[in-house]
């Protein structure tokens, strides 16, 4: 979707705020949100593409005025509700309880087996690479053009690089297609290519000299030139 999350080339967003000696988590709730994400995604309650899309559908003003882990909280809530893991009413009621009594503890529950399997997941990862029986359509050195498409759903083809000419720099393996997987349409794995674009192709006279941008793109985002 042409959402506010798709930020490449936008102006006017201000200075980069670099925090010295930044902690991994700024407060306890960020740590809870992070761990909850790994635990719920890791158990397959939703997939990574649904997770990302849940952030993209936040209102633009909300997206820009909320913190990173608030984005995560939004999409975790949305996905768990959509998947029927919990409903909005019970979540709101429980939130009210903790608002009234912020220091109320969360009931502890130990599940060493789950803790171990999730730790294992963190160490081993969960690849979205898939075997496919077809050959890649493009090879290194091929000139390609990105499609001029504006899907309303999830996509990983950024706006700044649509309808642009580039050259295939690397051919990667096939990976789950986010555009399908975010919307319950299956994995539809496709080859991913690292495509090189000269800065002038995107930015014209505003391009900086001696700059190239590499973007990793799924096969269906590209057409031959």
């Amino acid at each position, binding site marked *: 979707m042409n959402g506010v999350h*798709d*930020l*490449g*080339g*936008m102006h006017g*967003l201000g200075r*980069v*705020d*670099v925090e010295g000696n930044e902690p*991994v*988590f700024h*407060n306890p*709730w960020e*740590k*809870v949100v992070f*761990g*909850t994400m790994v*635990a*719920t995604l890791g*158990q397959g309650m939703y997939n990574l593409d649904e997770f990302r899309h849940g952030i993209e559908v936040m209102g633009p003003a909300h997206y820009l005025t*909320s913190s*990173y882990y608030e984005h995560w*909280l939004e999409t975790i*809530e949305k996905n768990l509700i959509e998947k029927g*893991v*919990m409903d909005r009413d019970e*979540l*709101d009621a*429980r*939130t009210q309880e*903790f608002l009234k009594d*912020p220091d109320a503890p*969360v*009931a*502890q*529950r*130990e*599940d060493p087996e*789950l*803790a171990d399997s999730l*730790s294992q*997941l*963190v*160490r081993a*990862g*969960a690849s979205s*690479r898939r075997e496919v029986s077809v050959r890649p359509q493009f090879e290194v050195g091929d000139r390609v053009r990105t499609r001029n498409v504006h899907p309303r759903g999830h996509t*990983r083809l*950024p706006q700044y690089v649509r309808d642009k000419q580039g050259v295939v720099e690397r051919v990667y393996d096939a*990976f789950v297609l986010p555009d399908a997987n975010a919307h319950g349409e299956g994995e539809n794995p496709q080859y991913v290519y690292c495509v090189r674009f000269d800065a002038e192709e*995107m930015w014209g006279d*505003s391009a*900086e000299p*001696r*700059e*190239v*941008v*590499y973007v*990793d*793109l799924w096969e269906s985002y590209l057409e031959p030139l």
Partner: protein
Amino acid sequence: MSDSYPASEAEIAARAKAIESLLVEKGLIGTDAIDKVAGAYESDIGPMVGARVVARAWSDPGFKEQLLEDASAVCAQLDVGGMQGEHMVAVENSEQVHNVVVCTLCSCYPWPVLGLPPNWYKYPQYRSRAVMEPRKLLKEEFGLDVDESVDIRVWDSVAEIRYLVLPERPEGTEGLSEDELASLVTRDSMIGVGEPRTPEG
């Protein structure tokens, strides 16, 4: 709860606890799992891991060659890998080339070697400018002056490949041990927004 914003810190904290407590009650997660997976990124998964990889590449030309060929495979040999780094690629800085990494769509970042990303990497300011005016961005926001004669390569990691910048080995580091070299490698130098420290500091 989520239709008014900006939400207060108190509301966010309450929402986080609400989700956690409901999942616990439903028997779907353990509080120990949350502590364990999040805690891993506070203790042993962070830029010190990537620094070890870079220091090895600086010390061992064969390892460096393998790293540039297949970063995931050689990192696995060092027991380095995992979530958000299932497919890693190392890109090498040189006198002619400077690499910098961004994710314009969200916050993709090689967790196994760098840990979780700093806020600036995840926020709109960096993400919007890195692909359009990287040289200006690096100079103005990070104090990194990339000479006009040097090519800038920006890697917008919007798929599932994660990029690690292999910075140039600083001068005056001949004879340093791998551990000493690793201490010079900064997180920022592996994203491409900084340079490694020099032995003098």
